[in-house]
C-alpha cells in the first residue's frame, strides 16, 4: 500500500509525518533530537529507509544522524568536516578577507545510486561527500578552490551551500548553489566547477551581472529534464534551458519575485511552485495572505493558490528547503512555515490543509513516496 512520509526539520527537532496514499489523515512522530536545530533530513532514493539528518546546536556544534529503519532509530555518525588543505579566506561583510570556518551542515543530498554515498552542503560554503554512510567526510575542494572563492561573501543567513542537485541522467554532473556566491556546475563528479550565473541580474551588488556574487536562494529540476533548471533568486524567479549556461527571468505576474523555495510538479515538468514573500527586509507574504503561486508554463504566467491557506493576518515565512512534492498520481505538494505549520495539497496545489500546525519554526521539508 502506498504511503507518504514527510520529513520535517525544525528549530527544535525533527518530525516525521506519515499518511496513506489518500493523504487525509496524518500521524506525527517526534520530536526526534528535541531541542536541536535540524536544518535538513532526507532519505535515500535507493533505500528509502536510509535517512540522513543534520543536527546542530549553538552549544554543541554539528552532529550527523543516520537511520536505517525510516526514522524510528537513529545513530550518530561522522561530524568531522575538515576543509581540505589550507582553508583560505573569503570576503567578509565589511569587504575584508575572512578565514573559512565550518559552522553547520545546511543540506544533505543522498546519492541517486548508492545508499552509502551522501553529499553535504555546509557553511562556510563547501561541498563534502561521504561514501560510507556518513561516517567519514571528504571535501570536494575544487569548488572552494575555484578562483572566485576569495570574492564570495555571506548572505544575511551566512555563507551557506544550501542546494545540491544530482543529475539523474549524467552521474558526473552536480549543480550547487551558495548564498551569496551563486550557482555552480561540475561535469566531472565534483572535481572542477563552473559558475553558471550568466543572465542573473542583482541590483544590490557592485556589478549587477557579475559572474559570481548573486544571492541564489534555491534551484529546482525535474528529473526527466535535467537541462532545465528553475531558480528562486533573492529577487527574481529565473529559468535555464541549458543546464545553467544562461538564465532568463520568468517572474511574470508574481506579486513579488522575492522568496525562498521553488519546486517542480512530479509529473508536469513545466509546472512549478513558488511562495512570494513581500521583500528581503520583511520576510512575510504580501498583504498578510499566504499564497503559493503555480505556473503551468514553466514560469511567466502565474496563478495564486489560496484554498485552505490563511488569507488574512498571516506573517510567516517559508524557507528555502521547506517545500517538496510527492510522486503519487495526483501530485502532492508540501511546505512548512516559520510559524510551525506544515501545509499539504493532495491535488497539485488546488486545495491545501495544515497537516500539523504548531511545530517549532520549520527549516526543511522533504517527502518520500513509499510503495
Amino acid at each position, binding site marked *: 500500500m502506498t504511503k507518504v512520509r514527510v520529513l520535517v526539520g525544525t528549530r527544535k527537532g525533527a518530525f516525521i509525518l506519515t499518511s496513506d496514499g489518500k493523504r487525509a489523515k496524518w500521524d506525527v512522530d517526534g520530536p526526534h*533530537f528535541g*531541542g*536541536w536545530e535540524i536544518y535538513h533530513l532526507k532519505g535515500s532514493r535507493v533505500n528509502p529507509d536510509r535517512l540522513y539528518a543534520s543536527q546542530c*546546536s*549553538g*552549544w*554543541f*556544534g*554539528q*552532529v550527523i544522524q543516520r537511520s536505517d529503519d525510516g526514522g524510528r532509530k537513529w545513530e*550518530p555518525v561522522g*561530524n*568531522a568536516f*575538515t576543509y581540505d588543505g589550507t582553508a583560505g579566506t573569503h570576503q567578509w561583510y565589511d569587504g575584508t578577507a575572512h578565514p573559512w570556518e*565550518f559552522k553547520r551542515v545546511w543540506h544533505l543530498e543522498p546519492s541517486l545510486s548508492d545508499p552509502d554515498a551522501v553529499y553535504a552542503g555546509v557553511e562556510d560554503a563547501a561541498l563534502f561527500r561521504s561514501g560510507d554512510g556518513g561516517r567519514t567526510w571528504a571535501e570536494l575542494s575544487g569548488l572552494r578552490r575555484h578562483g572566485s572563492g576569495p570574492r564570495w561573501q555571506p548572505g544575511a543567513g551566512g555563507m551557506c551551500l544550501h542546494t545540491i542537485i544530482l543529475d539523474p541522467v549524467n552521474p558526473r554532473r552536480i549543480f550547487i548553489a551558495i548564498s551569496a556566491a551563486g550557482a555552480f556546475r561540475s561535469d566531472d563528479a565534483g572535481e572542477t566547477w563552473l559558475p553558471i550565473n550568466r543572465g542573473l541580474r542583482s541590483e544590490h551588488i557592485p556589478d549587477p551581472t557579475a559572474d559570481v556574487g548573486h544571492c541564489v536562494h534555491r534551484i529546482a529540476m525535474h528529473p526527466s529534464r535535467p537541462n532545465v533548471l528553475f531558480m528562486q533568486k533573492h529577487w527574481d524567479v529565473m529559468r535555464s534551458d541549458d543546464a545553467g549556461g544562461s538564465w532568463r527571468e520568468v517572474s511574470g505576474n508574481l506579486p513579488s519575485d522575492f522568496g525562498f523555495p521553488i519546486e517542480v510538479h512530479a509529473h508536469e515538468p513545466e509546472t512549478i511552485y513558488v511562495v512570494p514573500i513581500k521583500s528581503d527586509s520583511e520576510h512575510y507574504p504580501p498583504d498578510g495572505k499566504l499564497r503559493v503561486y503555480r505556473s503551468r508554463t514553466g514560469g511567466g504566467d502565474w496563478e495564486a493558490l489560496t484554498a485552505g491557506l490563511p488569507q488574512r493576518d498571516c506573517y510567516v515565512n517559508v524557507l528555502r528547503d521547506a517545500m517538496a512534492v510527492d510522486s503519487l498520481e495526483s501530485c502532492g505538494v508540501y511546505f512548512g512555515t516559520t510559524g510551525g505549520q506544515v501545509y499539504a495539497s493532495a491535488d497539485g496545489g488546488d486545495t491545501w490543509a495544515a497537516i500539523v500546525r504548531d511545530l517549532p519554526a520549520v527549516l526543511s521539508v522533504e517527502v518520500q513516496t513509499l510503495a
Partner: protein
Amino acid sequence: MIRVVLPAHLRNLAGVEGTLALEVQGPATQRSVLDAVEASYPMLCGTIRDRGTRKRRAFVRFFACGRDMSHEPEDAPLPDAVAAGREPFLIVGAIAGG
C-alpha cells in the same frame, strides 16, 4: 574512576543515563578527562571541544567542586576530590540566550 556529568542533550546523544565513570590515563586534567570521554563516546567528539582547535566550545563550561574551571589550563591538575572520584567533573551547557 573519575565521574563526569554531561548536559542532558549530550547524555541523549551518547545514549547514557546518569553520571559517567571513566578510567583516565595519567594525571586527571581537563584534557585527559575529555580525551577519556571522547574515547568512550566518540559521538561526543566535536560537541564539547572544537574538532579542529580542540578548544572548549564557546557555550560549554566546566565546573568541579563548586568552581568554574572553564578558563583553567587544559593540563592543570583537577582537584584531588575529582581525581579520586569523590566529586564529579561537570560539563555544562552555558545559560545563553536573550
